[in-house]
Every structure is written in structure tokens, then in C-alpha cells.
């Protein structure tokens, strides 16, 4: 009897879920019945599972053993370069194996030989070594092991010959000898001095770590010696790469000592301060028994994460590390001190000294290794040290700074969100963003996991921190979130991953702070505020579920607080802000059921606020904002009239605030928001004329705002955007002269912004879009030459963007711009050129489609490009190719669920002109049956005409069918009350049916 393995597996997994053995037995009794073989198999699997103890099989421990490459491994007794006889392998460094060797000439002595792994570019290693050899020879310091020589083995492996130091790695020695803190520091200082000496000779070590600092005993006295100077440079491999390999292999652990600037990808800008950092790590380890980033962390993190940890994660202070260490007793024992005493001796100055050396920003580290040593000495002599505590505020600022740079660089966002039928514009950025986001999700998940770890460590630190410092962190956090989040980020329509990560971090910090606080009334307010902040941040990130959860919590806390202190205006305002956020979030979400209720609550809250604090302008502003949101909500839920009256209530106040305080930006902006929403509401009420007037008024106000606040780029940009949008609207209404003016204003404004902020892609993107729309508008109004000119400018703009960052949004924009040029060229009579340009545009477009097969903007573009190409080919009388293009166009349109009657009719024409009568018949029949409803008058006439043309080439059967199609189409046209004038019908194309009795009747 055979077993069904799937069944056995299912039973095994089900049984595993049952912790009690009786349950398992009963379950197996029932499931297996009399099938003993199956039962035995499942039981065997279960006991095998138990025997593994739930532990994972170690990933292939079967290592690549030495035998694989036995031939290339150095063998004792062999002679290198005719001078050095290898005696014994004594260990391995990061770069290769180390041997004791005997030098024969010119002097007979024992040396250490570092044999570099094979496969490296030996010649360039040696060349670099030679370059530094002079400098290396200049080094003469009792704490530096000399480098004598370098060469190449017969097999082409580089090797280096050094002074033979018979010693133990620094940390190992200190622990073995149970050196006290003081003794450790005394041993550390000469290391600094040695490094200083090398720095003075222009040599940076770049790979300082305990295994490169050997302690040997001279006359019973321990003397540290730094080895491997100059080797890292000669190897020239980016330490990043190298060290990570070893980290993942055997935890040799070089990245643990790597400075943040070394962890920077491809960073060549490494100076002496990188050694200071590594010395800081070594001191950290000497004091606490662990490196700032723990070995364990390194083992579990992925490469990029390791780099990120080094670059971004602030290590805990040495004393903090000790408090969280489980091995504190043994660490203390190795330092011949009581655990509590050890911790106490680190708090304060030693913490500061170490943290100064470990600053991520190298300008804040000790300037020289000697400076470092001197501070250690000062500590030993009970003098005031140079290093001081790092304030929480500073840490937060530094954090913000790091991200601000990222923010500034990553402004690349789409601006115009309205669309128009006449313009083919590349709106794909937004969709791309979503895709990329999805792609990033996994990576993000990892980052989050890591961040959680970081946050945990942060909690431990926080708990230790005094309450005062917590308040300071809060203040710093508030400062950052108001400044960075509100000033920098709220204006942006979309965020990059970096920006999202940043926001999440801020939110998490708030969450962390809330966790650490005890419950009392003051902290209750912190809870409420913290939750509100978190909700606001997630609102920016678009995660409505989290927003609702936090905002509800915050509202609850605020209500409790307000009951006690109804006159606390700050609480009241925050409460209304929370209510407003709750309502806005719900009304925007797909399944917001409580929107009405939330809207009313928010409005009531705002009304009460102004009633209680009538003279407080900030309250009035909040009231106005809430009311305008409410009005817009009503307008979109088909209660525009109510919405309009709500708007009227705040109109006077909003205008008053703006007039009273013309230099307060947010009052002014709020007035713009009011005007804009007003015309949107009017537009929804179909009061077009008033809407148009309102639109103009809103635009004027936005322009005024822009000229009053020339430094506020967001205001500038949104003013320019208004003009583009208005231009699109005008062009859509065929008011080309006005449209032209608007586009040209937008173009000028955006060009200026680009000049002012040359590194920002945001404005360049806006400019590129304006130019595309403008060119199409020109083309539509028949100004072909100008259309070509502007389209070429658009190509230049998008080309610049693409060369800066070849992301798909930019590539798609470039393709769109090219298509613009092609359309204009075609209209100008240059069909050949048009075809060529479209070839290129389609290739670029294809790149976007390839990477994102459902990008509807790209597919829409593709559709139009194929249509344009078909049109050009038609002009060139290459009808068969034109038909192919039309097929491609139809295919692209179908991918976005569009079937355009025009496409099919055009395809019919191309097929007719290529003489493919049978295909024309088939297609025309299917068009008339499938698309009857949508076939407009124009197309019916064309269809009839194409059927007639095709019938001239057709076989007898097709001929009659085609004639019937043509006649039917014309009859139908007649039914639609379109009179067929003789003139239309005079074309000889219609000859085949001219004498048809039905037509005869129609024409009469």
C-alpha cells in the first residue's frame, strides 16, 4: 500500500497544531482509520519534527572546504619571491592568510607575511602599494609594526612583508589579563598616538580593529602595536564590500568598526577622521565588551541594512549599553570591578568621550587622534574633558538635517491634476508612484522591522533618560514635525520613499514617547497631542485606517481634558483639528459611512470654538478651514446649495483676516483656498458663468499671493499651476488665444522657478507639462510652426529631467513630448520625419509599458502615438503599415478597456486602401453590429466610403456585401436626419452604389 504524501503532509501539519498528545491521537484515529501505513508515516514525521527540536537546519554548514583549491593554498616550507620561507600559518586577517616566515636576505629575521587572496588584480594592488611605500617607510613608531616589503608570488598573488609581532588582539588581551578600566585606557592612549604618527605621515589606516592592534609583552609590560598600515589602501577594495563579505561569512566583523562615511556607497572621501571613529569603536568595546552595533545585529541584518545601521543608527551610550547587557557580571569581572561600579564609572565623561569619537558627523569628532588621547588622559587625571553630552535636541536636529537633504533632493512630483480631452499629456507619474510603492513595500517591511528594533533600543534609552530630557525631545520632535512636516511636506502631492520613511519615523517617535509616559493629566495631554500628530502624519501618508484609530483616541483624550478645562483654548483648538481630520479622512475613504456624522461634529466643534473665543483669530481661521471642508463635502455629496451657504458664512471672516493681516501667509492662503473651493462648488452646481468668474478671481488672488511671497516656492508653483490648468480648460473650450496667454504665463513662471532652483526637478516637471499642453493647444489652433517650437522645448525639458534621473516618469514624459513634436511635424507636412520621431517616442514609451504593463497613462500615450504614426504613414501612402499601426493602437486602447469607434473606422480605411476587401468586409460588419450605438455621423459616412473603395478590389461575394454595408450606412445616416448633399456624394469613391435604388431614394 502506498501513501499519498500530500495527505500525510496535511495530517502532519494539522496534528502539529494540536499541542496535546491525546488530541493528536484522537485526530489521527479519526483521520487515518484503518490505514496503518499512513498513520505510521504521520507519526514518524511528527517524531522527526520533535527530534529536530524545532530548530532550523543550519544553512549549508557543508562549507567549501580547503580541498577545492588546495593547490593555490600556500604550503609551509615554500619560498616566496626567493627570499621568504614560509614557516607556519598563524591566522587570517580580512584579506588573506598570515604566515610567519623567515627572511633570508639581506637580513636574516622572522617576518610576518600577509598573503592576499588570489583573484585580485595583483598588479594594481602592488602599484598602489608601491605608491604608498615611501610614506610607509617614513613611519617609525614603537607602536606601529613596520611594513617592509611587498611582492607577488609565482602564482600572481600579492603579499606583504611586515614586522613580526607576537601578540594577542587588543580586546582579547585586556579581557584575559582582566585589565581594569584605567589600565585599558592607559593601553589605548599609545594606540591613538601611533595612529596620530601615521596620520602625520599622511597614512590613514582605514581598517583599525582589535585584531589589527596586537599587544605583546616587552619586559613584562604590555605594548600595543598597530599592524597592517597602508594595506587597506593598497587593496583598495571598498572596505564596504570586503567587510560585508566577511561579515556574512565568519563574522570577522570589520563592518563593526567601519565609519559612517566608509559605509557610504562608493565613497572615496575618507580622511583621518575615519580612523578616529574606528578608535572610538575600539574604546567602546574595551569599556563595554561590545561594539556599538552589536555582532548579533550584524549577523541578522541584510547588507544594505548593515550599511544603513552604520550610517543612520545612533548607538546607545556605553553606560546605557551596559545597563541593557545580560553579561554585565562577566563584563565587569573581566574589568576587575563590581557591575554597579563599572556602570557608574562610564556615566558622564567616558560616555561623552566615546560618543564624541563616534559622531556620525566627522566634523564633530576629535580632530586628531592625539586630541582623542589627550581627552582620555584628562579623564584619567580628573581634569575637565573636551567632550560633552550630546543633547537630545541636537540629536533630533541632526536627524532632521539628514533627512532634509534627502527631501530637497527628491522633490520630483507631478503638479497638474486636471486633464483635458484635447491634450495628450503624460499623466503617468502618479500611477507609477503607486506601482513603485508596491514594489517598495517589501523593502519597506524590512526597514520597518529594523526600525522597530531601533525603536525598542530607543525605548530603553528613553526610560533611562530623565523626564526633563524627555520633554526636550518632545519639544524637538514638535519642532521638527511642524517645521519639516508642515512646511516641507504638506504641500507636496506625493512623497518619495525617503520622505515616507521619514514621516513614519516621526510618527513612531511620538508613539514611543507616549509609551514611556505615565498617566496623569499633563501626560494625558501629551497622549492626545501625540496621537493627533501620529494621525496627521499617517493622513499625509494616506493610511486612513491608522489615522482613524489614532484620531479617535486623541479625540477621546481631548474630550476628557476639555471637560476639566473648558476654557483652555489650546486644547479646544486641537480638539477641533482632530475632529476635522476625522471627518476629512472618513469622507475621503471609499467606505466612509459616518461622514455625515463626523462632518456635523467637526462643524459643531468649530462653531462652538468661535462662539467661545470670538476674538481669537487662530480660532476663526480653524473655523473657516473646517467650514470650507464641510462645504466642499456637501457639494460633492450633491448638496451644493447647502455647501454654498456654508461658504457664505465664512466668506466675510476669511476676507477680513486676509485684509487685516496681509503679511500672514496662512490667512492669505486660506482666502485663496476659499475662492478656489467656491468656484469648484459653483461649477458643480452647473453655474458655469459664476464659476468662471470665481476661477478668475481665485487665480488673481493666487498671483497676488505669489508676488507677495516670492520666497515661498509652493505658492509660486501653485500659482503657475493655476495658469496651466486654466489654459487646458480654455483650450478645451477652443478659446485658443486666451489659452495661449495662460500657457505662456505659466511657462514664464515655471521657467523662472527653474532658474531659481536649478537642482529641483519639481519645477522642471511642471514646466515640461505646461509645454506639452501648450504645444498641443497651438497645434489645435493651427499655429503649426510655433507648436513645433514649443514641443521641441518640451523635449529639451524632459530630456534634461531624464538625464538627471532616468526614472520611468521622466522617460514617459520625454516620449509624450516627442509625440507632440511628431504631431506638429505631420501637420506641417513632414510625414517622414514624424514617423521617425514617433519611432523613438514609441521605444521610450515601451520602456514604461514594459516595466508597468498596466500603466494606463502610458498605454493611453501609446494608443495616441500609434494613431499619429498611422496618420503619417497614410500621408505617405503606406496603407498596409498604417493598418498595422492602427491594430497596435487598438490593442493599446483595449488594454485600458477602451474601444474607440474611430480607430476601427480608420483601420477599415487603411485596409480598404491596401486592397484587402475581405478584411474590410469582416471588420465593417463587426463594427456596424457591435458599435452601432457609438458610430457617429462622421464615421458612418467614412465607413460607407471605405466599403465602396474596398468593393472595387473585391471578389464578387465580398463586393456585394461591401456595397450593402455602404448602402446601409448611408441609409442609417439619412435616418439620423443628416441630409446627404450631392456634393459629398460626388466623390467617385461612391460610384459602385450610386445607382442603388435605396440611395436613389435617399438622395431624392
Amino acid at each position, binding site marked *: 500500500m502506498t501513501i499519498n*504524501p*500530500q495527505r500525510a*503532509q496535511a495530517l*502532519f*501539519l494539522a496534528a*502539529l497544531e494540536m499541542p496535546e498528545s491525546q488530541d493528536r491521537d484522537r485526530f489521527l484515529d479519526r483521520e487515518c482509520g484503518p490505514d496503518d501505513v499512513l498513520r505510521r508515516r504521520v507519526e*514518524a*514525521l*511528527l517524531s*522527526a*519534527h520533535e*527530534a*529536530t527540536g524545532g530548530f*532550523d*537546519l543550519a*544553512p*549549508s*554548514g*557543508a*562549507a*567549501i*572546504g*580547503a*580541498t*577545492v*583549491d*588546495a*593547490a*593555490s*593554498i600556500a*604550503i609551509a616550507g615554500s619560498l616566496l619571491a626567493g627570499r621568504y620561507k614560509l614557516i607556519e*600559518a598563524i*591566522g*587570517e586577517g580580512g*584579506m*588573506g*592568510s598570515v604566515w610567519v616566515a623567515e627572511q633570508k636576505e639581506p637580513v636574516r629575521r622572522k617576518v610576518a607575511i600577509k598573503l*592576499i*587572496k*588570489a*583573484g*585580485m588584480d595583483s598588479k594594481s594592488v602592488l602599484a598602489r602599494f608601491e605608491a604608498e611605500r615611501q610614506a610607509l617607510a617614513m613611519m617609525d613608531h614603537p607602536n606601529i609594526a613596520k611594513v617592509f616589503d611587498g611582492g607577488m608570488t609565482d602564482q600572481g*598573488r600579492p603579499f606583504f612583508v611586515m614586522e613580526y609581532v607576537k601578540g594577542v588582539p587588543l580586546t582579547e588581551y585586556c579581557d584575559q589579563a582582566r585589565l581594569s578600566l584605567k589600565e585599558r585606557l592607559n593601553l589605548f592612549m599609545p594606540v591613538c598616538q601611533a595612529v596620530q604618527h601615521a596620520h602625520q605621515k599622511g597614512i590613514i589606516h582605514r581598517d583599525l580593529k582589535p585584531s589589527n592592534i596586537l599587544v605583546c609583552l616587552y619586559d613584562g609590560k604590555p605594548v600595543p602595536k598597530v599592524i597592517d598600515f597602508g594595506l587597506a589602501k593598497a587593496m583598495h577594495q571598498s572596505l564596504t*564590500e570586503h567587510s*560585508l*563579505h566577511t561579515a*556574512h*561569512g*565568519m563574522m570577522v566583523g570589520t563592518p563593526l568598526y567601519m565609519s559612517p562615511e566608509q559605509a557610504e556607497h562608493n565613497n572615496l572621501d575618507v580622511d583621518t577622521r575615519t580612523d578616529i571613529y574606528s578608535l572610538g569603536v575600539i574604546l567602546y568595546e574595551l569599556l563595554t565588551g561590545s561594539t556599538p552595533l552589536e555582532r548579533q545585529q550584524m549577523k541578522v541584518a541584510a*547588507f*544594505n541594512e548593515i550599511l544603513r545601521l552604520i550610517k543612520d543608527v545612533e548607538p546607545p551610550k556605553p553606560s546605557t549599553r551596559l545597563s541593557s547587557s545580560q553579561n554585565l557580571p562577566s563584563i565587569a569581572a573581566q574589568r576587575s570591578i563590581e557591575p554597579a561600579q563599572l556602570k557608574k564609572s562610564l556615566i558622564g565623561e567616558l560616555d561623552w568621550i566615546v560618543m564624541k569619537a563616534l559622531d556620525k558627523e566627522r566634523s564633530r569628532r576629535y580632530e586628531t587622534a592625539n586630541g582623542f588621547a589627550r581627552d582620555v588622559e584628562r579623564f584619567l587625571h580628573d581634569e575637565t574633558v573636551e567632550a560633552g553630552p550630546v543633547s537630545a535636541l541636537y540629536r533630533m536636529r541632526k536627524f532632521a538635517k539628514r533627512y532634509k537633504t534627502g527631501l530637497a533632493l527628491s522633490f520630483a512630483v507631478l503638479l497638474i491634476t486636471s486633464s483635458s480631452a484635447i491634450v495628450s499629456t503624460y499623466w503617468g507619474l502618479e500611477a507609477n508612484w503607486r506601482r513603485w510603492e508596491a*514594489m517598495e513595500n*517589501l523593502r519597506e*517591511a*524590512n526597514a520597518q522591522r529594523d526600525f522597530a528594533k531601533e525603536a525598542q533600543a530607543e525605548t530603553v534609552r528613553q526610560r533611562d533618560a530623565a523626564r526633563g530630557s524627555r520633554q526636550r525631545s518632545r519639544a524637538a520632535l514638535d519642532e521638527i514635525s511642524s517645521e519639516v512636516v508642515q512646511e516641507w511636506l504638506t504641500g507636496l502631492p506625493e512623497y518619495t520613499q525617503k520622505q515616507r520613511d521619514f514621516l513614519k519615523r516621526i510618527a513612531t517617535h511620538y508613539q514611543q514617547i507616549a509609551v514611556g509616559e505615565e498617566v496623569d493629566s499633563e501626560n494625558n495631554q501629551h497622549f492626545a497631542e501625540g496621537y493627533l500628530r501620529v494621525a496627521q502624519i499617517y493622513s499625509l501618508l494616506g493610511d486612513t485606517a491608522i489615522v482613524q484609530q489614532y484620531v479617535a483616541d486623541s479625540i477621546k483624550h481631548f474630550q476628557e481634558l476639555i471637560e476639566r478645562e473648558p476654557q483652555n483654548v489650546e486644547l479646544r483648538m486641537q480638539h477641533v483639528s482632530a475632529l476635522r481630520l476625522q471627518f476629512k479622512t472618513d469622507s475621503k475613504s471609499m467606505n466612509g459611512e459616518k461622514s455625515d456624522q463626523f462632518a456635523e461634529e467637526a462643524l459643531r466643534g468649530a462653531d462652538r470654538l468661535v462662539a467661545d473665543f470670538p476674538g481669537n483669530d487662530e480660532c476663526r481661521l480653524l473655523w473657516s478651514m473646517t467650514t470650507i471642508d464641510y462645504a466642499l463635502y456637501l457639494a460633492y455629496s450633491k448638496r451644493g446649495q447647502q455647501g454654498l451657504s456654508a461658504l457664505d458664512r465664512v466668506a466675510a471672516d476669511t476676507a477680513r483676516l486676509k485684509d487685516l493681516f496681509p503679511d500672514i501667509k496662512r490667512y492669505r492662503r486660506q482666502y485663496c483656498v476659499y475662492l478656489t473651493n467656491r468656484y469648484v462648488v459653483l461649477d458643480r452646481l452647473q453655474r458655469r458663468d459664476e464659476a468662471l468668474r470665481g476661477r478668475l478671481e481665485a487665480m488673481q488672488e493666487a498671483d497676488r499671493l505669489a508676488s507677495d511671497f516670492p520666497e515661498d516656492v509652493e505658492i509660486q508653483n501653485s500659482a503657475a499651476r493655476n495658469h496651466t490648468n486654466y489654459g487646458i480648460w480654455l483650450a478645451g473650450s477652443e478659446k485658443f488665444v486666451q489659452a495661449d496667454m495662460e500657457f505662456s504665463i505659466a511657462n514664464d513662471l515655471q521657467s523662472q522657478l527653474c532658474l531659481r532652483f536649478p537642482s529641483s526637478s519639481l519645477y522642471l516637471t511642471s514646466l515640461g507639462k505646461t509645454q506639452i499642453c501648450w504645444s498641443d493647444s497651438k497645434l489645435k489652433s493651427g499655429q503649426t510652426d510655433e507648436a513645433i517650437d514649443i514641443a521641441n522645448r518640451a523635449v529639451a525639458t524632459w530630456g534634461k529631467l531624464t538625464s538627471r534621473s532616468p526614472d520611468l516618469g521622466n522617460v514617459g514624459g520625454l516620449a509624450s513630448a516627442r509625440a507632440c513634436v511628431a504631431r506638429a511635424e505631420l501637420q506641417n507636412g513632414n510625414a517622414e520625419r514624424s514617423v521617425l520621431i514617433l519611432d523613438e517616442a514609441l521605444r521610450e514609451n515601451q*520602456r514604461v509599458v*514594459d*516595466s508597468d*504593463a498596466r500603466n494606463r497613462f502610458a498605454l493611453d500615450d501609446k494608443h495616441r502615438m500609434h494613431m499619429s504614426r498611422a496618420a503619417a504613414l497614410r500621408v505617405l501612402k503606406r496603407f498596409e503599415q498604417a493598418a498595422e499601426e492602427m491594430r497596435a493602437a487598438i490593442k493599446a486602447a483595449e488594454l485600458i478597456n477602451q474601444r474607440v469607434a474611430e480607430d476601427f473606422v480608420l483601420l477599415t480605411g487603411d485596409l480598404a486602401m491596401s486592397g484587402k476587401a475581405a478584411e474590410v468586409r469582416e471588420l465593417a460588419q463587426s463594427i456596424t453590429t457591435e458599435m452601432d450605438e457609438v458610430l457617429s455621423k462622421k464615421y458612418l459616412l467614412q465607413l460607407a466610403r471605405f466599403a465602396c473603395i474596398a468593393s472595387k478590389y473585391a471578389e464578387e461575394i465580398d463586393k456585394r456585401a461591401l456595397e450593402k454595408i455602404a448602402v446601409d450606412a448611408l441609409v442609417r445616416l439619412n435616418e439620423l436626419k443628416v441630409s446627404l448633399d450631392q456634393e459629398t456624394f460626388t466623390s467617385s469613391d461612391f460610384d459602385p452604389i450610386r445607382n442603388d435604388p435605396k440611395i436613389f431614394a435617399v438622395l431624392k
Partner: protein
Amino acid sequence: MSDVTRILSQIEAGDPAAAEKLLPLVYDELRKLAAVRLAQEKPGQTLQATALVHDAYVRLVDTDTVQRWNSRGHFFGAAAEAMRRILVEQARRKAAIKHGGDWQRVELSDPPAKDQANQELLALDAALPRLAAEDPLAAEILKLKYFAGLAREDIAAILGLSVHEIRQKWNYTRAWLRLELEK
């Protein structure tokens, strides 16, 4: 751009033929890398195969160009298979040396544990096709875990399954393997 990066980009761009080119390339690269790495180890020291796979990833794949998990999956899938071949090849050769079949015999102070590891490896490799016949997914997971050293979360992402599903499958695979190797 490395060849591997280019192929992964082609896979991302939807070129199915590109995937076939990956294995030989990765195999070749891993072998080279293994040889290079080995040269830097002292005798008796071993090099973890899984670390090598990760090394190869860092060296060969430009993560700025290759962004999708799908193509990472292709890479690790190919790397796991390549590493399996390399290890098996090596284990066989090693067995041959033990039997005196290789004239290039050198004195090596290998700890006996490693010998055992080699046998385990060969046994595991022999069991792999049987597992694949019974449950291809389990075999794939085993390969990714054992030869490419991926964490459950990564395997889940690559295979498009939940971590829970991977954990279950892994529980079974482990038990199955134990029974198989005890035979």
C-alpha cells in the same frame, strides 16, 4: 553593469528567455568567487556557502537597477541551484580524495565534523529529487534555505507566499528530510 544585472533587468522587462541565461552565469561567478575566497582562508577554515551566495548578490547585482523581488527571486533561485552543484561537486571530489583517488593529495587538518557535513550534503542532495517529485514547493524552499541561506521572510517574498505558509512547509520538509536521511 554586470552581466547578471543586465539579465535581471531583462527579466524585469519581461524577457522570458533571459532567465535561462542566468544559471550558467551565476554558476560561473559563484565558482570564481569561491576560489577567490578560499584562497584567503587558512587551511582548516571553511567558507560558508550561503555567505558566498550573498556575497555574489552584492557583487553582481546592482540593486539600483534591479529592484523587483521577482528578479531577486530569480537570482537566488539560480544561485541556490548553482551553489548546490558546486557543493555537491566538491563533496564528491573530496570523497574521492579520501579514497586516495586524487594524486593531488595534501595534508590537511580537517576536523572530522566536516567530513560528516559532506556526507550530509551528499545525502541531502540525493534526497532532493525525491522531495521535488513529491512536493516541488518544499524542494524549492529547501534549496533556497539550505543553499542560498535565505531567511523565511525572504523566501516568502520570493515565492509569493506568506511567512506562515513557508513555516508550515518548512516544518514538513524538515521532518521529511530527517526521516529520509535516517533511512
